[in-house]
């Protein structure tokens, strides 16, 4: 019998009971004694990535009845590919244009595979030893893939021994290589965070108006699969405990961490210049600030002031916001920067030193005949009430969030029994209390919205809208130019610390900062879901730009000390320290 082709099939023939099989030209099995043809076909699974082609060629097993426990050999990057696809589809369902997925994300993914040496290359990263894991350690086989052509018969032949064991196989093929320290250190390998970072980069490239904080919010709320995303992998891709180390996560990364991940990925991919973020783009501070102002229930009249500040800080330039190997190598944080600009504008207009803003507010209250003037005190009361409620809702949602998978991955067989028992206990307790309280566990998500708050007169609004209020109380006409009535501006020391030594001094200075300012930071950190210290650092950065830039326009900002200016420009001349917002020649 040609064992080589029949792959060790030893079932007796139904007609003549002999065990003597051959393979016909079409690849079907037939009994050599009685020429009875059966349904079985010869299977060939070709795992090579031939350079120049990007398809994995597989011929399916051909059995009519698919046994559910059959697994397929798969690589980790395939798994990530599926997850990426699911995440992208979720985004498309939320309204992102298909251009993002088809023309941006996939090319980026293929570029990543190429750069990390996992595909599209003559030297795949695991070329040295390609271990196929069988149920017993004997069936370890190495195949070198330096040349694209492998001998098909030898492949089949060596597959032959383990073909009957394939039904027991689970887990990816190359998880061991994925877990070696050397490759991990090389930072080329994919993980869940990087997956999300790739999506983030793709979104920026497509100029989609989703900021990083929006993306993280979608992940948090479960609209985009992340935690337990591996559960949506196809059934044939069986995962085992070690794959769980890579695919299972129990945290959603923070803004800071994601930004760093994306930055690293950006450098790794060595991308060319991004499509420009123009002033009309919704990621540009000019328009993004409008969104945040609306969300914070601040009057629309504040927007021109925000734009002016933006110009002052030299941040209106679109090159600043467009990633480019030459001019802007650092990934901008559109959301945090815009929020910082708004905070500084508020500081300019209202002082925010615990005195000025209330005085202005009193005056506005006194002089307001029509009820149309923006009153900071009223705004504060409304917003604070809404903020408290929203923070409680958020805490409640965090408490209720369910993290554990329906189909958990077990690190080993021993642990499996223990973990299954624990899971059973947890489920029973949950069912008992769900019945008792008539309230299912987990978070009930209502409709999605880009905004955290809803201002207006409808039912369920967080409060009345103040968007149409006038800023007459806080601006005055001086020499035919509108300028803020407030003439004082305070800021803490703007000298930069070495980033490796300390990240933020916020926790030290917070106690002596004015309460209004601290509260405003809290409001915007809530909107973006970042830590106040993070936003505070960004505010300082923008302030450095404002005060470090050339002479103020129109004279409506009085800088407190000039020495601040010289020290920062001295720093810029020597060009040390890392700067998120790279030094640009000031706009004339």
């Amino acid at each position, binding site marked *: 019998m040609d064992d080589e082709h029949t792959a060790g099939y030893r079932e007796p023939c139904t007609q003549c009971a002999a065990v003597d099989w051959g393979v016909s030209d079409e690849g079907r099995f037939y009994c050599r004694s009685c020429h009875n043809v059966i349904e079985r076909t010869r299977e060939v699974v070709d795992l090579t990535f031939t350079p120049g082609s990007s398809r994995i060629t597989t011929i399916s097993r051909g059995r009519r009845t698919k046994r559910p426990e059959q697994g397929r050999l798969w690589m980790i990057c395939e798994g990530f590919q599926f997850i990426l696809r699911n995440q992208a589809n979720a985004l498309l369902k939320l309204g992102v244009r298909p251009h993002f997925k088809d023309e941006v994300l996939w090319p980026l993914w293929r570029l990543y595979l190429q750069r990390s040496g996992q595909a599209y290359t003559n030297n795949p990263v695991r070329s040295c030893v390609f271990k196929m894991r069988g149920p017993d350690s004997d069936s370890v086989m190495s195949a070198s893939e330096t040349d694209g052509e492998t001998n098909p018969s030898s492949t089949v032949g060596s597959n032959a021994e383990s073909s009957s064991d394939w039904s027991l196989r689970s887990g990816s093929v190359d998880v061991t290589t994925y*877990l070696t*320290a050397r490759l*991990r*250190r090389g930072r080329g390998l994919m*993980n*869940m*965070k990087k997956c999300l970072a790739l999506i983030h980069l793709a979104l920026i490239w497509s100029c989609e108006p989703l900021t990083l904080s929006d993306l993280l919010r979608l992940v948090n709320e479960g609209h985009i699969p992340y*935690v337990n995303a591996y559960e949506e992998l196809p059934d044939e891709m069986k995962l085992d405990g070690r794959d*769980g*180390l*890579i695919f*299972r*996560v*129990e*945290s*959603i*990364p*923070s803004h*800071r*961490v994601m930004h*760093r991940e994306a930055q690293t990925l950006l450098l790794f991919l060595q991308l060319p210049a991004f499509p420009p973020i123009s002033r009309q783009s919704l990621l540009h501070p000019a328009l993004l600030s409008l969104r945040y102002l609306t969300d914070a229930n601040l009057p629309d009249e504040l927007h021109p002031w925000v734009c002016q500040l933006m110009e002052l800080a030299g941040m209106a330039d679109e090159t600043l916001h467009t990633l480019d190997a030459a001019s802007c190598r650092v990934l901008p944080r559109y959301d945090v920067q815009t929020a910082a600009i708004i905070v500084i504008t508020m500081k300019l207009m209202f002082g925010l030193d615990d005195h000025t803003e209330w005085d202005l507010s009193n005056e506005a209250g006194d002089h307001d005949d029509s009820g149309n003037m923006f009153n900071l005190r009223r705004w504060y009361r409304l917003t604070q009430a809404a903020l408290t409620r929203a923070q409680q809702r958020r*805490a*409640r949602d*965090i*408490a*209720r*969030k*369910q*993290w*554990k998978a329906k189909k*958990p991955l077990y690190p080993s067989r021993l642990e499996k029994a223990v*973990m299954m*028992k*624990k*899971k059973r*206990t*947890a*489920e*029973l*307790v*949950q069912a*008992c*209390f*769900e*019945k*008792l*309280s008539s*309230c*299912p*566990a*987990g978070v009930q998500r209502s409709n999605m919205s880009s905004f955290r708050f809803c201002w207006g007169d409808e039912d369920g609004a967080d409060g009345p809208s103040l968007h149409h209020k006038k800023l007459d109380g806080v601006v005055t006409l001086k020499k035919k130019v509108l300028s803020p009535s407030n003439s004082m501006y305070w800021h803490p020391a703007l000298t930069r610390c070495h980033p490796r030594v*300390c*990240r*933020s*001094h*916020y*926790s*030290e200075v917070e106690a002596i900062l004015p309460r209004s300012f601290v509260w405003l930071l809290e409001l915007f950190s809530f909107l973006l879901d970042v*830590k106040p*210290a993070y936003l505070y650092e960004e505010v300082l950065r923008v302030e450095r730009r404002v005060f470090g830039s050339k002479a103020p326009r129109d004279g409506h900002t009085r800088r407190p000390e000039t020495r601040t200016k010289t020290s920062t420009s001295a720093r810029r001349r020597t060009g040390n320290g890392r700067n998120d917002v790279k030094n640009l020649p000031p706009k004339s």
Partner: protein
Amino acid sequence: MDELERELGPLEDVEDDDSSDNNSTKGRKKSNLPLVNPLCVETPKETGFHQSTRICLEQIREAMLHHRWQEAAEYMACYSQILEDSSRNTEQQYKELIWRISTEILHNHPNSKLEDYNIIYERMKHSGFRHYLMISLEHAFHLLLHGHIEDAKRQLSNQKTKLIQAYRSLLDYIIWCDKKFTHSNTDYPDSGDNQEMHNYFRQASVNLKEILKNPGVWDPFILCYVEMLEFYEDHEVALKVLNDYAYDDSFPPNPNAHVYLYQYLKRHDASERKLMQELKNLHVLVPSHELMLEYSSLLLQSDKKGDIQKALGVVLEMLDFACWRINLDVWKRLKAIIQKLHLQEDWKDVVSGEMAGRKDWWPALHFTSFHACKDSEENPELMEVKASLTKILCPDLMLKYTAERVTSGTWT
């Protein structure tokens, strides 16, 4: 990725993950105050899962403290995922937490049913060894309280530990009592019932005898056993049991044992000598026991020579304790003893002998002007008795214990 880091160790150049602001300031002074609730403290590298469960626990605690049981039940449904936590060291903690909180919620929630209790108890019992017995016991108590005595017994039926056996016999006793009650209330004593009652008695007594061989504190069980034995008029065994319980050296010293023995002897008209003997032993253990009053009266009544002095000693020792300070009976007894003592010639020596060690601190304990004021307001009869004794007990001292009215509200 967190699991990956844990399994394989963090990479060397991994920058600090997003830790809380507290970590960024170096050299921050650690608080010396003890942590109130270590479970609700945020750890620096908390995963999202741990953050969720931590906040959930805080919410449950808030809800329970404010008696919002519906809310607590809702959060509990979400909290149960903590049982699947794979970090090793806190398993037991969470199991116990879930058990105790669940039962508390079930106690107070209006819609809780017995099935819910059964589910929780069964599940938590089998989730680990450490709490198995405790949970079994609690389950049994719960069933008992709801009248399911047989179920309660079944819960405990296959346990080998002494405590469980003891409680099982307690249940037998309860059933026995029940039957006795119904039996005594009927006009026609049914012999079948009697037989059943006797069966329970036998079951209980077999177990209790076993239990009582082991050193320990078995107060409630002793009482049940003795009651049953008394009913069947098995006095010898009862006495033996009580004596063993009180006098076996291997048992921890237990004043209650002597109390029970004394009460039993009293019930069965034992001689005064015997009673006094018992109370003497009790006196050694607990000089401030309320039975000392009885002891002193027995000693007062007796004709033996040294007894009156003993009586004085007993009562004075009672009054050494602040709890008897304003008890009229004790002071009256003291007065009666002193009066009887007066018949002896050497009464002064006797008194001064007993008071020798007390001269320094008794006046401050009983005879200050503050006490005078209080007693004259609240308990004038007491004041009279005490006042009459001051000169006798402390003849040399100038005590301020007088019945003078305090003027202008100032203490002298």
